């Protein structure tokens, strides 16, 4: 059951539905009555430049599911650190597309990926599958900005395998869609490290879903996870984080935090943090909070002349800023900060 298999067969019965526990808050089966036609090739000449182009050595663009140049897996050798901008652009209208990409890091290789999901169409269904493998001691930082159309359905799933002592860091920022899901499924090697962070800023009737599953099978791996979100209007945010520590994965250190602001009465947040621990010698914690902006702080800011919209944006920016500050790549951190600032001040 997946969007990818439903797109392949054209059978809506293969869509994940609320009967699948991990999809109960992002029910695609209940939403999509019939699988739409395949998207035509997009118009590459109409592409604008990418927000990360200047920071990257190379840009790989998928337009309506088709890769514009090159083919095959992205292979990163250990010789020099690399930066790649990865763009998934949907120019489609009421059609569907899918693509897949593998990224392989040789032992000791270092890669920074700037990944963007960009809307230049409407009503489309987009599915992306990534397969990411890190060799021993390899390092990857992944910074993701998701901007899909209001009425789009967009799913991105990454399978991540870490060899021993590899380090994977990810920050995904999303503004949602009609249904939008960003899923990461990660398997640790011995002594590997993973940071899986997220930010969702949702308004209108948008929905955003940040889901992850991390499996510790080996000794001494670390998982750090911090997701913060803000929902307004009738928006709905979903956070699902599962960390499984299997027998034998002693010395595991896992911390998960999810904190949300609900800024209107009709907005909603559904959160499911799960720790499944079968090993003895582990250090695990999770925290989950949902709150509103501090009215007293808002009045204080108003008294100093700051209009309500700006005051709310400043406080929300400060709230999610803790996540953005954890981005290691300085240039990407600035881009992410601007992205947050714009999302909080636009669409008012």
């Amino acid at each position, binding site marked *: 059951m997946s969007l990818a298999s439903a797109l392949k067969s054209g059978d809506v019965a293969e869509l994940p539905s609320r009967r699948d526990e991990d999809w109960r808050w992002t029910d695609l089966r209940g939403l999509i009555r019939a699988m739409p036609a395949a998207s035509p090739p997009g118009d590459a000449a109409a592409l604008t430049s990418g927000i990360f182009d200047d920071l990257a050595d190379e840009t790989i663009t998928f337009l309506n599911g088709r890769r514009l140049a090159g083919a095959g897996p992205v292979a990163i050798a250990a010789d020099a650190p690399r930066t790649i901008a990865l763009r998934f652009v949907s120019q489609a209208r009421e059609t569907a597309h899918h693509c897949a990409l593998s990224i392989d890091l040789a032992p000791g290789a270092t890669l920074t990926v700037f990944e963007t999901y960009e809307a230049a169409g409407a009503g489309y269904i987009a599915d992306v599958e990534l397969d990411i493998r890190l060799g021993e001691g390899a390092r990857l930082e992944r910074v993701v900005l998701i901007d899909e159309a209001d009425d789009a359905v967009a799913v991105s799933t990454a399978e991540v395998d870490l060899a021993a002592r590899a380090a994977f860091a990810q920050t995904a920022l999303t503004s949602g869609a009609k249904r939008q899901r960003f899923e990461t499924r990660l398997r640790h090697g011995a002594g590997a490290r993973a940071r899986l962070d997220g930010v969702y800023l949702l308004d209108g009737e948008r929905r955003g879903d940040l889901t992850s599953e991390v499996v510790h099978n080996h000794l001494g791996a670390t998982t750090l996870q911090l997701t913060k979100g803000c929902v307004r209007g009738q928006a709905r945010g979903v956070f699902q984080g599962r960390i499984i520590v299997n027998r034998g994965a002693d010395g595991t250190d896992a911390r998960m935090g999810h904190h949300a602001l609900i800024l209107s009465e009709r907005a909603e947040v559904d959160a499911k943090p799960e720790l499944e621990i079968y090993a003895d010698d582990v250090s695990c914690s999770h925290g989950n909070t949902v709150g509103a902006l501090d009215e007293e702080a808002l009045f204080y800011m*108003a*008294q100093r*002349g700051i209009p309500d919209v*700006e005051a709310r944006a*400043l*406080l929300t*920016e400060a*709230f999610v800023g803790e996540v953005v500050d954890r981005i290691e790549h300085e240039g990407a951190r600035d881009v992410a900060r601007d992205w947050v600032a714009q999302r909080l001040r636009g669409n008012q």
Partner: protein
Amino acid sequence: MLSIKDLHVRVGETEIIKGLTLDLPAGEVHAIMGPNGAGKSTLAYALAGRPGYEVTGGSATYNGEDLLAMTPDERAAKGVFLSFQYPLELPGVPGLTFLRTALNAQRKARGEDEIAAPAFLKLARDKAAALKIDFDMLRRPLNVGFSGGEKKRMEIYQMSLFAPHLLILDETDSGLDIDALKVVADGVNAARAPDRAMLVITHYQRLLDYIRPDRVHVLAAGRIAASGGPELAHELEREGYDKYAKVAA
């Protein structure tokens, strides 16, 4: 500058200000003194427009305009500044970001040009030096982890930066030791000007040794129970608020 007539203010179901009348001309400093629960902070919040402080009657006119019809940020842009008894901490919001956002919002509301970053930094630096504020404090999130004295000093600093016309100081002396009190009083005294009026709200006479008022008003049970010169503050210090509490009751 400020003219309050028969003001009534309710918080929740309770009427706190019950027919308060007060005239504050430009260039003057008036003290509002009164026992706990008399409505001193309620008056300050109502004048600043805090949500939940419902004006049920009377009027407040500021430079000829209906103050009570304005939103809190409009009042600030027109020069109303309330120094909070307990200034808020804003985690994650750097002081300089807050100050520049506020200053530019006020300027924009008044139809003035925004102040550019270099000019703002120079202004912020100059004002900080004058108040002996460590500039690095302004790079930190506003008021987070500051002592009571530092927070009050930050209020005076903001006052000097925004150059307001109507200053309302709500229990500015509370929680201050004598040295901090002097710093704050110096800042307030330096702000005295012919086009500026101040309402100094305090429970104790101590602050008025440093900030000398032109008039002193006793607020009891939601009304001005007595008004007089600076000597009234000393009388209150000697005799307490009892007789006013009885009159008001």
